[in-house]
């Protein structure tokens, strides 16, 4: 058994007894076998002394039970680590930031408290998954569409609190940005409701997010200032139709005007997440075609060389697929207007009509649909990319750690980021899945992402190399001025240090808040680099 730091076995045993009284003996997990189920199965420290493992877990079913858990933890100074559905794989899963923490597993708090199809919102508890919320909506034929992340078993509450993202239009695919109102149990066991939920008898908690005065909702995301027990989300009304179309542009240097034009559609809110690609480059993370590999053999090619290469290849340099949501007349008209504008902006732009679907999708049509998340349908199909499959069959990884460099929405930044990634992998003598045609991801509408997917293993030697690569990518990107939006506990201290403007003023401010809001330092110590005073001095 792993004990929480600075807690005696006798005190821990007494605390477990009190937790059992609070939530019922069946819902306190302390045997080695049960606690092992809270390990992060993608841990980059799997099986090593540094692996962040829990001491025990407790699963309250109500907000009152959460309050009792917090009070007991304060009494015995036991660090807690709340999880929602615990499926935050790649970002730590259900394992704590601090080894020996007690996981507060909120999976049993799984009530869908409201879905309003006229005012377009939902109110849910943390244990509700995207699958649950989707099934609830479909069974009742409610006319709203979810925005879901790639894996559908996650929690809208947990996903948004880790700044998770989806695929539909900009206001909805930023999951934290589309929340409206939360209920929080503080470190001292008090219940707060944010926004208009703070007005007693309010009937518009999910309609107006600000209330009055400073908003504090952001304090509860990627942090350790409270345990969120309810959260509201704005939903998209179910659009009548979904239409896709692909634009291709001929030249290497057409990428910048392409991005500029896509941003016009994006920032007007007329499209979902654009899907950039390159017919020449070989696709996301694919090895470059032989001719491109040959061109790169003598170093990163100049733009002139790339332009000549594109000319010889006689294929479009770049593509982007656009996704329109709305009434049939307007999605068709928008695609026509897009063709006109792209043609005007970029000589040689070409167009390919894609899918047209009437929404909602009939249930019998769902299983065969590609791109389910773009239609608000939760699934786990994304795992096929990393599971054993015909392309990974020789050596599929056991997990992965994702680094997302947040870069400006312009061609020069994409090219530079691809080159920084390429060179960092090469420094580590690791095959680099980047080339001058690598394309960004656009989860957050105003920012591009250059992604790195680093494999994790059950093998310490291979994990050691993965850690070195991951840490180096983070440092190289930070040197260039690019932060990352989310990471696993193993790298949260390093990530916090990259946001160091003015002698870490931001982190120091967060630490002041931590000391005031959670004086005993019991909530998720170390999460996103925020340690309580008692633990700060022992960490570099």
């Amino acid at each position, binding site marked *: 058994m792993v004990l929480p730091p600075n807690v005696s076995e006798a005190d821990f045993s007494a605390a477990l007894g009190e937790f059992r009284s609070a939530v019922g003996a069946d819902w306190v997990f302390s045997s080695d076998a049960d606690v092992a189920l809270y390990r992060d199965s993608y841990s980059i420290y799997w099986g090593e002394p540094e692996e962040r493992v829990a001491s025990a877990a407790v699963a309250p079913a109500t907000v009152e039970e959460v309050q009792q858990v917090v009070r007991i933890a304060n009494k015995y100074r036991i660090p807690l680590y709340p999880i929602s*559905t615990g499926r935050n*794989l790649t970002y730590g899963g259900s394992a704590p930031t601090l080894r020996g923490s007690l996981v507060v597993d909120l*999976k049993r708090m799984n009530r869908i408290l409201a879905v309003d199809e006229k005012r377009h919102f939902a109110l849910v508890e943390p244990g509700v998954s995207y699958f649950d919320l989707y099934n609830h909506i479909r069974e009742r034929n409610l006319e709203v569409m979810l925005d879901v992340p790639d894996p559908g078993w996650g929690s809208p509450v947990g996903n948004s609190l880790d700044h998770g993202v989806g695929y539909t239009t900009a206001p909805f695919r930023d999951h934290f940005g589309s929340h409206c109102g939360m209920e929080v149990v503080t470190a001292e066991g008090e219940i707060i409701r944010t926004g208009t939920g703070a007005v007693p008898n309010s009937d518009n908690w999910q309609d107006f997010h600000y209330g009055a005065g400073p908003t504090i909702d952001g304090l509860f995301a990627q942090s350790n200032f409270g345990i969120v027990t309810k959260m509201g989300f704005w939903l998209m009304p179910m659009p009548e139709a979904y239409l896709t179309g692909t634009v291709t542009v001929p030249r290497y240097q057409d990428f910048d005007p392409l991005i500029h034009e896509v941003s016009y559609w994006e920032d007007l809110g007329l499209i979902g997440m654009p899907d950039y690609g390159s017919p020449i480059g070989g696709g996301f993370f694919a090895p470059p075609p032989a001719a491109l590999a040959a061109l790169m053999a003598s170093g990163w090619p100049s733009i002139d060389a790339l332009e000549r290469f594109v000319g010889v290849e006689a294929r479009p340099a770049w593509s982007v697929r656009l996704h329109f949501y709305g009434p049939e007349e307007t999605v068709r008209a928008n695609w026509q207007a897009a063709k006109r504008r792209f043609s005007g902006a970029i000589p040689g732009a070409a167009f390919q009509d894609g899918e047209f679907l009437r929404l909602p999708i009939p249930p019998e049509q769902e299983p065969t649909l590609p791109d389910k998340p773009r239609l608000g349908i939760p699934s786990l199909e994304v*795992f096929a990319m990393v599971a*054993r499959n015909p392309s990974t069959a020789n050596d599929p990884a056991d997990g992965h750690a994702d680094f997302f460099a947040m870069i400006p929405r312009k061609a020069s930044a994409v090219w530079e980021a691809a080159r920084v990634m390429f060179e960092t992998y090469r420094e580590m003598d690791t095959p680099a899945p980047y080339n001058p045609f690598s394309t960004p991801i656009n989860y957050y509408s105003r920012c591009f992402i250059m992604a790195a997917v680093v494999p994790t293993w059950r093998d310490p030697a291979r994990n050691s190399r993965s850690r070195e690569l991951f840490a180096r990518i983070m440092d190289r990107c930070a040197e260039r001025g690019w932060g990352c939006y989310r990471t696993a506990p193993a790298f949260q201290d390093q990530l916090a240090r990259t946001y160091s403007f003015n002698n870490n003023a931001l982190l120091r401010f967060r630490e002041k808040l931590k000391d005031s809001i959670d004086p005993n330092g019991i909530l998720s110590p170390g999460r996103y680099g925020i340690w309580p005073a008692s633990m700060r001095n022992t960490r570099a």
Partner: protein
Amino acid sequence: MNRVFRVVIACVMLSASAAYAQSDATRQKGNEVFQYWCATCHGRGAGMPGTIALTAKYKGALPGALEDRTDLTPQAVRFVVRNGAAIMPFFRKTEVSDADLDAITEYLVRRSPQPGERANTGR
């Protein structure tokens, strides 16, 4: 056939039929739990990561979809749910309870031979 023997036979048959009904109910529950927790990766049809992975692993020697397997043992099902396999994580008891796991196991081994082994599926 004497009356006592007939009563004994009747009792045995009743008890077998009750056991069968219970097993049927468990399998039905197992099917429901499987569809909720497992089929999103291990279901039949295209796009299922678990089915794709097992198809790649067995190269046609065994079906990729778990519900089509006739060789699964209770021990294997229990082990994988609580220990994971490759990128498949393990499942906590707040997700798949021990009773749920019993039901999934009963459902997935329904077409496996060795009824003698199946009688000993208790933990």
